């Protein structure tokens, strides 16, 4: 089947989509956007987190056909068109919140959604709760928390 979906602001068409296929597979294998990572395929790890009509979701649990006519924003769409990093991405780089990097795209999209709904700097418990569905097996999370706090404080100060 054919799926029409707007990804990162650009209308796209995926053809020959199998009806049981996930949005994640369509993004990675059909639309050339491998930023969202494929790990657990059961919503446990958060590595495939994308925005679906402004709501962060696990792309592995969205059937491709459910994205028909809707808007998806992936980690590739967060940076500006000129290539400037999103403040959350910049904070991850500066804080060294990345080791192997596999969980990073999902964590960045999910952290981005926390800051989008928060004016000030979220309390640590809020950050932990918001990121509870994103697993990282390298960092121990401390640097990730540092990065989210840094991005939030810059946003609050600007």
């Amino acid at each position, binding site marked *: 089947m054919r799926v029409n979906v707007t990804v990162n602001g650009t209308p796209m068409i995926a053809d020959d989509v199998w009806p049981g296929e996930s949005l994640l597979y369509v993004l990675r294998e059909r639309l050339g956007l491998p930023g969202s990572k494929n790990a657990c*395929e*059961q919503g446990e790890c958060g590595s495939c987190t994308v925005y679906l009509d402004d*709501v962060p979701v696990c792309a592995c649990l969205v059937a491709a*056909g*459910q994205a028909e006519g809707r808007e998806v924003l992936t980690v590739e769409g967060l940076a500006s068109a000129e290539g400037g990093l999103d403040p959350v991405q910049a904070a991850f780089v500066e804080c060294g919140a990345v080791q192997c990097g596999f969980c990073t795209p999902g964590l960045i999209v*999910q952290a981005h959604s926390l800051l989008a709904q928060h004016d000030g700097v979220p309390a640590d418990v809020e950050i932990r709760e*918001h990121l*509870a*569905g994103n697993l990282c097996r390298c960092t121990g999370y401390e640097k990730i928390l540092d990065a989210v706090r840094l991005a939030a404080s810059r946003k609050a100060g600007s």
Partner: protein
Amino acid sequence: MDFLRATTWTEALRMKADRPDATPLQGGTDVMVEINLDKGRPKALLDLTPVTELTEWSIHDDTVRIGAGVTYTRIIAELADRLPGLAQASRTVGSPQIRNRGTVAGNLGAASPAGDSHPPLLATGATVEAESVDGTRMIPIGDFYTGVKRNALAANELIRAIHVPVKTGPQYFSKIGTRNAMVIAVCSFGLALNVAERTVGTGIGSAAPTPRRAFEAETFLAENLDWSFENELDPVVTKRFGELVAAAAAPIDDVRGSRDYRVHALAVMARRTLGWAWQERVNGGNS
């Protein structure tokens, strides 16, 4: 596999009548896992997410009618004051991403004994509104669960909504798991007190082939609780309530926990939730 996309409720009912083998799809947090991990392959998927009327909730006669497309995130944000037990259970579902997609109706459709919605729905005496081209059926929640991952829906029926009574007293939910997020319950328990009528509702999760109530525990507590809430909570009553809740369970040993652990934990959760409910009243709640 076919992908059916319903854009209105009428169309959804017609599609389900034509294709009773189609699996209804909302948030995908159960159905897509089965497909991704090749544990099951439906003949067809019936996508209900475009049906906007399912995403609404309303209140009639002190009962909240929750559309089948209302997510856990919205129950937490919009209904916690009226349905505290269900909202507490919703907060323990998966992660923010899962709660943004998952629905109570999906929990009912999957009918896993471990589903987090079931204990508060049982404790509050909820009703499932099922519909087909033949008409509407109101199914009391106690009749809905018919076996492990089985429910009372006919092959041509879809869940339209869940009707949950607005709180009539303290409601609490407790769940055992290995961490605070992304946990399928080892076992869980829901308690709802109806202060005006002096009745007790309970719901046990993940400790029997289906979610179930603890009837004897409910009767015992209704008769022996000090409904004036003026004295101390009687430890003898609390202990006996816990024992009767545990006695109502029929758990198994499995990968998440042993039978003995579940029985023990249920008694603990029953005592704790009763303590929280009592404290809410003592702290001046006239809810």
